[in-house]
């Protein structure tokens, strides 16, 4: 009995091993997979959910097919946050990049949301294909190009061990956004400036850039100070600022932060102690160009706040952009989140590259070919307007929209250039 059982088991084991080996060989097929890696959790979910929705929308508009129906397109929104940290987790992002590297059907990796996360995944994906990465949101300049005083000396080469560039982004970098904010402040007649940052890569990066170009433009920077994004209020900080300009208030406050880092509370306490936004200007980057700021601070308090964001003023937006907002509203409800349109165009660029590879008679499952095609994108008719990627992978969209909050929503103030 025992012997027979043993023989039977061994036969079964060998048979299934053989089966498995056969099965392992097959696989792949006519599927092109695109994944996104964004922190889908509490603090960032407001923005990342709109990015995912927009990407989903773009794939659905393509009918889920590529290259005239030859390939099936699938999109998977991955999450790089963990419950234990409550925000993006370096370990999860690394694992996502490794997972994408190992799955041969993945041809594009859309992400990340946080620049710190991109620094981990770029080198991994760079050595596997390279697999192209398109970020809708990273603004740290060092990922793509050197900027004096803002990047480390070995950036960006240290992220590209294979020597080939594989990272492009639709978001404008801090070293462009800073001068735009300063140009705006010069136009507003600002002479003295107090800079606050949320101590994170994005917020501090854009604040550093503003600091640098404000000094160049002749604006006196009284101080740049990091605040604790978890504090209950900032009344003491604002009281200190209220006498920081030789006993008086500064002309303007620049807030380098995303809205989730307590930006609304900063704004409230600023208005309560320093006065309204007419008296002391309040300027911020695209991280606060969102309805969430107005919702958090209240329309009265937020009245008059300025924020810069890459792109054109709503009135100048082309047909494609208007259509995007209409389509998005029809499927997911209305949005004015600046990241939504960037998510849409990142996916658009990825799909364009795939189509280009097919049109040139190439194989869209070849990662290197897709990567090359992404960098070859020129004069792309996206929802943001007509734009290209330069050789560093940065978007060439020389326009920035400046919005001012009026009556409870952002109104176009004008289009600025760096």
């Amino acid at each position, binding site marked *: 009995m025992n012997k027979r059982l043993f023989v039977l088991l061994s036969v079964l084991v060998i048979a299934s091993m053989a089966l498995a080996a056969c099965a392992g060989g097959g696989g792949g097929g006519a599927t092109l997979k695109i994944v996104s890696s964004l922190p889908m959790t*509490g*603090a*960032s*979910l*407001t923005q990342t*959910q709109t990015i995912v929705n927009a990407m989903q929308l773009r794939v659905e508009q393509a009918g889920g097919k590529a290259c005239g129906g030859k390939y099936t397109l699938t999109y998977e929104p991955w999450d790089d946050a963990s*419950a234990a940290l409550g925000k993006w987790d370096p370990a999860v992002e690394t694992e996502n990049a490794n997972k994408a590297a190992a799955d041969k059907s993945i041809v594009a990796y859309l992400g990340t949301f946080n620049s710190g996360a991109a620094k981990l995944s770029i080198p991994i994906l760079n050595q596997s294909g390279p697999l192209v990465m398109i970020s809708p949101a990273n603004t740290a300049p060092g990922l793509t190009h050197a900027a004096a005083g803002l990047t480390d000396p070995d950036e960006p080469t240290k992220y590209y061990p294979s020597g080939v560039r594989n990272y492009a982004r639709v978001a404008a970098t801090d070293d462009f956004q800073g001068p735009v904010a300063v140009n705006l402040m010069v136009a507003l007649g600002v002479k003295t400036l107090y800079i606050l940052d949320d*101590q994170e890569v994005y917020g501090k990066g854009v604040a550093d850039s503003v600091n640098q170009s404000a000094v160049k433009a002749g604006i006196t920077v009284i101080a740049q*100070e*990091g*605040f*604790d994004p*978890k*504090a*209950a*209020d*900032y*009344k*003491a*900080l604002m*009281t*200190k600022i209220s*006498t920081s300009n030789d*006993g008086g208030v500064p002309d303007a406050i620049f807030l380098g932060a995303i*809205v*989730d880092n*307590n930006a*609304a*509370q900063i704004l*409230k306490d600023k208005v309560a*102690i320093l006065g309204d936004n007419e008296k002391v200007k309040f300027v911020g980057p695209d991280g606060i160009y*969102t*309805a*969430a700021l*107005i*919702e*958090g*601070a*209240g329309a009265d*308090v937020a009245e008059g706040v300025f924020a810069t964001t890459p792109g054109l003023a709503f009135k100048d937006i082309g047909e494609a952009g208007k259509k995007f907002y209409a389509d998005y509203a029809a499927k997911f*409800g*209305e*949005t*004015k*989140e600046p990241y939504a349109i960037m998510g849409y165009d990142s996916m658009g660029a990825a799909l364009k590259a795939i189509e280009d590879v097919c049109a040139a008679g190439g194989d869209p499952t070849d990662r290197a070919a897709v990567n090359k095609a992404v960098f070859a994108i020129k004069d792309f008719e996206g929802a943001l307007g007509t734009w290209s990627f330069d050789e560093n992978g940065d978007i060439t969209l020389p326009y920035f929209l400046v919005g001012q909050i009026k009556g409870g929503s952002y109104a176009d103030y004008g289009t600025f250039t760096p």
Partner: protein
Amino acid sequence: MKSTLQKFARPIIAIITIYLVLLLGPIAALDIPVIAASIAKNPSQLLQFLIIGLANGAIIAIIALGYTMVYGIIELINFAHGDVYMIGVFTALTTLSLTGTLKSQDPVRIGIGIVIALVVAVVVGATLNATIERLAYRPLRNAPRLAPLISAIGMSFIVENIGLIWAGQSWLVPSFGTTGGGAQKEFPDLLSRMFVNMNMNPDLLASSGLGLRFTIKDLLVIVLAGVLMIGLRQFVQHTKLGKAMRATAQNRDAAKMLGIDIDWVITATFLIGGGLAGAAGLMAGLYNNNAWWFMGFRAGLQSFTAAVLGGIGNITGAMLGGFLIGLLAAFSDGYLNARWTNAWVFATLVLILLFRPNGLLGEQTGQKA
């Protein structure tokens, strides 16, 4: 020989400490010459930071009162307490919204609305806290000492998530319907509006010419914290239930033998603690004008620290601890650098506990197993 050494030991240590502070302090923004100069330049600002610190401390203190009661009686760090406070903020906001108070300009109507919101927030906070006790702590009463701590952490995650979902419901929390529950929500400045509409200036010292800002909101939170503390002290000292609580806190088994219904006493403690958290939620909403699903985490941590700093189970101590934390944070924000505030607050707390190992007002009971 030994006595000479001892005689000089303290001054030498003091000098070395001062030298080290001067040497290393500036790294962490503790630059004494700079601080001295800015105080000399604008001395009245010192008073302003005092007011801000007291008002912020008052909110921490109110949460800490509930914390310390629960803590004193079952020696459990109720991690979910801060999140009950957060639910209090949202309860108040929702009540104010549903009663139409948020949009009202009539001072009487605003006043009534706030009172209704207070009652609802207290009831919801109390119920939630008692429910948490029933579900997560009572079954673990005979488990190892640290087991309920994990349950408490789990409850904290759960309640936080409830807040996140709540904040996303646009029919409960006024919003534009596009931002979801993760975003901060406005808690309108009803007290100032009420005062303005009664033709009074909400800034009480505006006409004094001192250049100080002391609003009706500051006054209200500080007074309320004081009243609650005194009320709670009287309650614990003089009522039957209060005495039962003290007895239970001292020795649960003995209290049981004396015929005290332990389960009821503990439930009552959680009800009171939760009610205080709910009230603190309304106050914080009116004071900081902000509602956020994540606000309970830091508030809980600070108020727990305040409770322990004051001496576990000591009501006056919790109050003192809360004010101390508020003041430290305000002075650090004002004279050091906001970047380092959290580190300085905790560094001071650590120092205080090193010199008073049982908290500011804790009894030196010797060893407690």
